[in-house]
Every structure is written in structure tokens, then in C-alpha cells.
């Protein structure tokens, strides 16, 4: 029992990253049908910005968080303007291929300019420490991160459900032409969505640095596959569903490994795809109701 609880608590950190990424992912997925595999590279860009601020320039922590978010937003919005806007409306597969191409470009540019090695990430002192709860061990950073992500997700869900911008987003995802004829500035709303989604990725990048202690050029690949599957499980466009599904995937993946024999640990990537196929065959609309459509 303790072992089970320990595994669940250990996966909360990774779950938070996946939840933030999936929430950002599902917003653009629902809005313009964009399956953005370059979102992993937006995430990686934020992590590298934070790496430069924290480890190389040794600037304070809050500035690093801010700059990571700014870096991600710049990359995300630039991608939207340069790559996705010209082909918008020509089908999901074209968007998918162009996202794949953009992701290869950005990842290999990073490898080219820096190098593919792991880069150490400085963790501030107030995040170090361990709490003991009976026999279960909780890292202080896991707890802080989990609470922070809960707050962010609550704000995000309020934003999407209750504010005027959120309602406009849902309207555009339902029918862009109706939204335009009602006098909405759809371009502005799409840009706002990209800014929010990239900012979430930037924050997730900081979390990745603190949890794993290092960043590298290929970090986006594994995370984005998990986030994509989480957004499909959560119902496309449903932010709450994506967050919950992100935690489910992280916890499920950890338990999947915990109860396998030790020499099969490498099978971890299989878990998300098994879940993906099961969901798509038996309940293609996702576990939760699609919020937008």
C-alpha cells in the first residue's frame, strides 16, 4: 500500500508537466484543429531560456520563470504566424506534417547551435527538502509544483468558461465563419490562445528543469507524445479533461512500470499508446465530454 502511494506521489511531478502541456495543446487542437507537434519544441525553447538565465547568467529565480514564459510565447507565436497561418483550413494532415517539419527544424537547430548533451539546471534552495508522511516520502518541490499547477489550472478553467475571451474561443472552435460574421476578431483570439498555450508550455519547462535537474534538446519528444495522448483522452478542447487525463497518464505510466519485472522497464513508452488505442477504439470522443464542440 505504501509502495503504491509512493509511486502515485512520485508521478505527480511529471503529471503536472503533462497536465500543463496537454491543457495548452488541447486549446489549439480544439480551436483550429492544429495537432501541434512543435509544441514540444516550444516547451524546449522555454527550458533553454531558463537554463541560460539560471545556470549561465546566475540571475534570480522569478526572472527565470518570467523569461522562460516569454521565450516560449515568442517561439509559439512566431510558429503560428510563419508556419500555421498560411495553411490554416487545408486539413488536419497538412497541419500535422507542417508541425512535424517545424518540430524537426527547431530541435535540430538547437542541437546544431548548442549540443545534444544534458545541461544542468540550478534548483533554488527553498525547493529543496523532504517531508515524511508515515513511511511515504514527499519531495518539497513535488508538493509546491503540484499546488502551483492546481492554482494555474483553476484560473485557466475559469478563463475559458466564464470570461468573454474564453467564450469567444469556444465560439470560434464551433464555427469560425459564424464567429466572424458576429463581428469577432478571430485572428486576435487565435493569437491569444497561442500566447496562453505557449505560456503554459514555458511554465511546464521550468517545472521539468526543477524535477529532473537537467534539460536537453530532445526533451520535448517524450513529453509531447504524452500530452497529445492526454488531450485525446480528455476530449478534444476540454481543458479540465486534459488536465485530469495528464495526471492519469503520468500515474498510470508509473504504476505500469512499478508492477512490471525490472528488466522490462524500457517498455514505458508503450503505456500511452496502449491507452490511446483502447480509448480510440472504444470511446473515440474521449473520457470527458468535449468542452468546446
Amino acid at each position, binding site marked *: 500500500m505504501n509502495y503504491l502511494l509512493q509511486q502515485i506521489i512520485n508521478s505527480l511531478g511529471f503529471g503536472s508537466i503533462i497536465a500543463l502541456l496537454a491543457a495548452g495543446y488541447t486549446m489549439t487542437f480544439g480551436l483550429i484543429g492544429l495537432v501541434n507537434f512543435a509544441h514540444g519544441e516550444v516547451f524546449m525553447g522555454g527550458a533553454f531560456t531558463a537554463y541560460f538565465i539560471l545556470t549561465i547568467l546566475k540571475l534570480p529565480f522569478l526572472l527565470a520563470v518570467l523569461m522562460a514564459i516569454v521565450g516560449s510565447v515568442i517561439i509559439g507565436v512566431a510558429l503560428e504566424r510563419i508556419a500555421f497561418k498560411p*495553411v490554416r483550413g487545408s486539413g488536419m494532415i497538412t497541419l500535422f506534417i507542417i508541425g512535424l*517539419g517545424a518540430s*524537426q527544424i527547431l530541435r535540430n537547430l538547437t542541437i546544431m547551435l548548442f549540443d545534444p548533451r544534458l545541461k544542468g539546471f540550478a534548483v533554488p534552495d527553498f525547493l529543496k527538502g523532504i517531508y515524511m508522511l508515515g513511511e511515504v516520502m514527499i519531495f518539497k518541490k513535488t508538493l509546491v509544483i503540484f499546488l502551483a499547477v492546481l492554482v494555474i489550472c483553476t484560473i485557466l478553467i475559469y478563463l475559458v468558461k466564464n470570461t468573454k475571451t474564453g467564450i469567444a474561443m469556444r465560439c470560434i472552435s464551433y464555427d469560425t465563419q459564424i464567429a466572424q460574421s458576429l463581428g469577432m476578431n478571430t485572428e486576435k483570439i487565435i493569437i491569444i490562445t497561442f500566447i496562453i498555450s505557449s505560456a503554459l508550455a514555458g511554465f511546464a519547462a521550468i517545472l521539468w528543469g526543477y524535477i529532473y535537474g537537467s534539460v536537453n534538446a530532445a526533451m520535448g519528444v517524450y513529453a509531447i507524445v504524452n500530452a497529445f495522448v492526454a488531450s485525446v483522452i480528455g476530449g478534444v478542447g476540454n481543458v479540465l479533461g486534459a488536465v485530469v487525463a495528464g495526471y492519469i497518464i503520468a500515474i498510470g505510466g508509473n504504476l505500469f512500470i512499478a508492477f512490471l519485472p525490472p528488466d522490462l522497464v524500457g517498455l514505458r513508452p508503450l503505456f500511452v499508446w496502449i491507452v490511446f*488505442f483502447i480509448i480510440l477504439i472504444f470511446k473515440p470522443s474521449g473520457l470527458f465530454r468535449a468542452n468546446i464542440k
Partner: protein
Amino acid sequence: MKYVKRNTFIIKHIVAIGLILLILFLLEKFLSGFWLTLLMLFGINIILAISLNITNGWIGFFSVGHGGIMLAGAYAAAFFTLPVSFKEGILGLHLPSFMLHTQLPFLPALLIGGIVGTAIGIVLVLPALRLRGFYFCAGTLGFNIIMETITENIPDITNGAMGLSQFPSYTNIWWVWGIAILLIYVTWVVKKSYIGRAFITIGKNPDLAEHMGINLLKYKVYAFGFSAFFTALGGILWVHLILNLFPKAFDLVLVFEVVAMIVIGGMGSITGSIIGAAIITFFADILAPIEEGFSLFGFNVPRMLGLMTVLIGVLLVVILIKKPDGIMGEKEISQGFFRKFLRTKQS
């Protein structure tokens, strides 16, 4: 009248085959080293691009899982072509004894690999029954990752992530271009036949195809089997050219290159695939030495790994934005194409 026609048909083919054999013979005689390898890589890229085009361009199921098929075919053939001393002595693989104690020549190994690849390719039809459009695409992406992960995690059979080496160098220009030209010829004939038209109809509008009495399942199985057989052959030829086999070689980067070939060349066009394969071979293999760094007029250009993938990605994105159908679209370069081209020029 009919007799004469058939006679010229046969003579045309004999002359064409003779010409191809002569060209290949001359090329093998006069090219060597880098350029010969390049020519073989070009042939292999043509095989991969055309066979991917059958599923992605013709029947409209955009697969990015052909890396898994190549992997399966390549491993199946490798178990038969590796020298016995390496399989049994050095690695001690846990294979059935008839595999462990035999080393087959290339043709049976190719056939075995092709059949295994076909079986794996028909497995891909299962998601195609339920998933459509983009979701099928994501499913095949998962299929690729699943195949790779499983191969990496059964070290008793596949030697895990370390992979296999010490292959006999079987691939030569005759095998590569023989198979490539056979594939071009077969796809050309198929495209004009009932089966090919059925494939393309399914790609344009599946519901219409079903109403016209085309058995969707049957033709999907045909298309995936055909495509998978030649994809597996391409994988086997590639492995016996670079003499090295490990699961990570078949990941998304390889699939991305092949997808770039057919998207740049034009989906659904055989000549488009050949043009796309030529462009990507040019980028990936001729310009590859630039990645290692060089000095030009006293400037030292540093080592830039991944530059070629960046260039291919930029080319792909620019083509998709400026000319979404690719260079050829769905057209083919044939006699009629030239005639029409000239006529539009004159008028």
C-alpha cells in the same frame, strides 16, 4: 493488325530492358566508392517513397508507421543473412535452431523479410478500419514507437539497442535498381488498371467507392500489403548497404525524410515520388559532408550536426505553404504530359 501490335509491344520491352541493363552495367563499371553508394541510396529512397505513396497518396491513409514495417522486415532478413559464427558464437541469440545454423543467400532472405513485412503491414489495416484521417496518422506514429520499443526490449532475440552488425555486404546496384525499376513498372501498370483506379477512388471519396461496389477492406489489405512488401525490401537493402542495424535507426527522423519525399514530389504521383527522392537524396547524402565542418577561403565553418534535417524541414514547410500539392501534384511525366506541355507553350 492485333498480331503486329503485340509484336511491337514485346520488342519495345526487350529494348527497354536491354537499355536498362546496359546503363546499369556501365554505371557499375565506371562509378565507384561514394558515387556508387549514392546511386544505391537513391534507388532505395525511390523504393521507399513509391511504396509509401501507395498508402499515403492513393488510398489516402496517411501512414507515418512505415519505419516499423522496415524494422520488422530488416530484422527478419537479418536473422537469416548474418554469419553463423556471429549469431551463435559472439551474441548467442536465442533463436530457433534452424535460423541459428543457416546463412541464406540474398534472394530467399529478401523474400522472407518481404513476407514478414507484409504481415506487419496488414496489421496496420486494423487501425484503418476504425480510425480516419488524422487519428489514423497518430495511430501509425504510435505503431512505429511500439515496434521500436519492443525490439529494443527483447535483447535475447534482437541484441537490444546495441543492434546487429557484421552483415555480409549483399546489396549491389543490380539488386537495388532491379527492384526499383520493377516497382516503378508494377505501380505504373497498377495505376492504369482496375485495382489502381479503385485505390485512387477510395482515396478521393471512400463512401462513393463503397457505393460503386468496391470492397473497401479488400482493397485496403491489397494496398497495405503491396506497400509493406516493398517497404520491407527497401529496409533490407538499406541494412545490407550500411551493414548496421539498430532499432533507433527506424525512428521518426527516417520516416520524416520519406514523408518529405512524397510531400515535396506530390502525393499520388509516381514520377513525383522519384523527383522527391532525388531532392532528399541530394540534401541528405550529397550535402551531408558539410555537417562535419570545412574551411572555405580561410573561414572555418564549424561542425553543425543536424543541418540537413533543418534544411529538409525548411524545404518541406516552404513547399507546403507555397505549393501544397507538391511539385507534380497528381500528374505524371509521360508522353501525354510532354505533348500537353508543348501545346500550352505554343498557344
